[in-house]
């Protein structure tokens, strides 16, 4: 009964506190929840194309926002292909040619492994507060979860998506849905989070459906198989030499 009393007392206060958060503050809290300095994850992408589905498996090592190393594990054709992101540069290594090639210019806009994600998406700074200003547009329920709907507007030009509409879980501070738009306001991609998981006190999207609206097919399902946050990552991985190992 005593607990119920305290719960009843604080429930309106927490709700009030939640309502007083500004859009930018919500975005910062999402960033604090989702971002960890280092992480190692294994994942797979189920790419639903027009002529069937393909499964692509990968393991990634990420350090901060500027360094990432990814090795593709399956299918056989992609196995051994590696990608290295260092600052604003992205290299890819293909074992069949034994070549390391810099991906730049218009190639960055190409689909990654035939998925609904582009290389540019990979290169994006994951700290959204650095890129966007946010305003609360409304409140909605997504998958049974109460959400703020935020309108994000780019702070600078030369950005892949000029504006975004994001649905933020009010309790977990994780995105449940995103609409990514061009400068003209035209919808380019949609992201639907189908499942979230709690890892080391953080809420992380476990299963996400990416859909490039200009691509036929049913989108790309991205699933995290395992994730370790704040992991120790060997230094040598973030060098071009590691691509050929």
């Amino acid at each position: 009964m005593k607990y119920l009393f305290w719960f009843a007392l604080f429930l309106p206060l927490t709700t009030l506190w939640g309502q007083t958060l500004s859009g930018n503050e919500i975005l910062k809290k999402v960033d604090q929840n989702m971002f960890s300095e280092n992480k190692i994850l294994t994942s797979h992408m189920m790419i639903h194309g027009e002529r069937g589905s393909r499964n692509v498996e990968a393991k990634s090592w990420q350090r901060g926002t500027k360094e990432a190393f990814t090795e593709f594990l399956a299918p056989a054709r992609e196995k051994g292909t590696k990608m290295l992101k260092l600052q604003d540069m992205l290299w890819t290594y293909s074992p069949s040619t034994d070549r390391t090639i810099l991906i730049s210019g218009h190639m960055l806009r190409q689909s990654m492994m035939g998925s609904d994600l582009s290389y540019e998406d990979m290169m994006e700074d994951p700290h959204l507060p650095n890129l966007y200003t946010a305003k609360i547009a409304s409140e909605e329920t997504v998958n049974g979860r109460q959400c703020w709907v935020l309108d994000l507007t780019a702070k600078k030009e030369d950005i892949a998506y000029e504006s975004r509409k994001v649905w933020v879980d009010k309790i977990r501070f994780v995105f449940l849905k995103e609409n990514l738009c061009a400068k003209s306001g035209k919808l380019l991609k949609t992201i639907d989070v189908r499942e979230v998981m709690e890892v080391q006190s953080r809420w992380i999207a476990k299963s996400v459906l990416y859909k490039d609206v200009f691509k036929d097919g049913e989108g790309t399902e991205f699933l995290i198989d395992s994730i370790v946050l704040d992991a120790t990552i060997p230094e040598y991985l973030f060098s071009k030499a590691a691509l050929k190992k």
Partner: protein
Amino acid sequence: MIKFLLKGLLRDRSRSLFPVLIVAAGVMLTVFLHAWINGAISGLIQNTAHYQTGHVRVMTKAYAMHVDQIPNDLALLGVDTLLTSLRKTYPNLLWTQRITFGGLLDVPDEKGETKEQTPVAGMGVNLLSANSPEWKILNIQPALVRGELPKKHGDLLIAEELAQKLNVQPGQKATLISSTMYGSMSFTNFTIAGTIRFGVGQMDRSVIIADFSDMQQALDMQQGASEILGFYPDDLYHEDIADIMVSGFNAHFTNTTEKFSPVMETLRNQSGLSDYMDLVEKFTRLILVFFIFVMSIVLWNSGLTGSLRRYGEFGLRLAVGEEKDHIYLSLIIESLLIGIAGSLLGTAIGVAGAYYLQVHGFDIGSMMKNNTLMFTDIIRAQVEPSTFIIGFLPGILATLLGSAISGIGIYKRQTSQLFKELET
């Protein structure tokens, strides 16, 4: 009468020389332009067929809808079966499968790092079979500039202009970066066997040619092809036959609800060529109509001037009892003779000029740098049977029309006034 009139024309050059020269100039221009346009269009059609569309092309319905984007994710699958079926059903055509693709050609330095990289437009064609029709269709042997023709898997031909831009020599390695049929990035090493120049600006800027099976492997297109092209053995586009064949094929093979079912299209209905050909046909007709119109006005004016000069002559002829109709008829016959003479002369000069350009051509390469149509750098006129008659009818018609209009003045002369006129 004709002999009499002819003598008159020859003896009085002021009546014949100027009109003949005008008609000859107009006819010459018409004949020459007709042959020139013919040559340019024939070259365009031939190049478009050889390098792009074939005389007929089979693709998937979905591929055909976005053909300009080269969407290999929508390519044909099970092409061997389809090819066998096409060869059996339409044995009069040469059938060949191709993969068209875009990508980047990356040339490494000694450490394997990117030294040069440039966008390329590529073709995967059957190069490794001696019986391949592609050798003749693409005219590969004469197009070779340096190096040698592909002999083994992994050999690549690249445009000479591209080789110079990338500073690569035959024998060097290069990596093709492209997209597989399923959208993944693909990397494939090739050896540059030789460099080629087709003399077609659009091809010579950025084309690379690899063996068909190599490209199937590179772009993960097992049993796949972007398109199957059909060519008439005489290398001429027979539109009527092609239309019938396309209707028959599409009725039999194309499933309206299945986007990957094969569909056949004629050369004319592809790459915006039908609009272009229609435009050229209209333009040719417009030239002829304009020529007749302008010539008629000039010859009408010339006839009026002549009539004024021959005012006394007509008056005298009327005064001695010649019928107005007879004088008018003699004027028309005179103009007919002038028209024939002028048209003969104009056709002779026009055909000679066109023939010269058919043999030597005119290099317009510098003007075609950003052109996206399959024009050759050297445009040649094309003399054909129609070239000999195309200027004839307008030449005669214009002369007749000019004389017919100016000759009406004969009927306005009053017989009662004739002697009074002659006295003055």
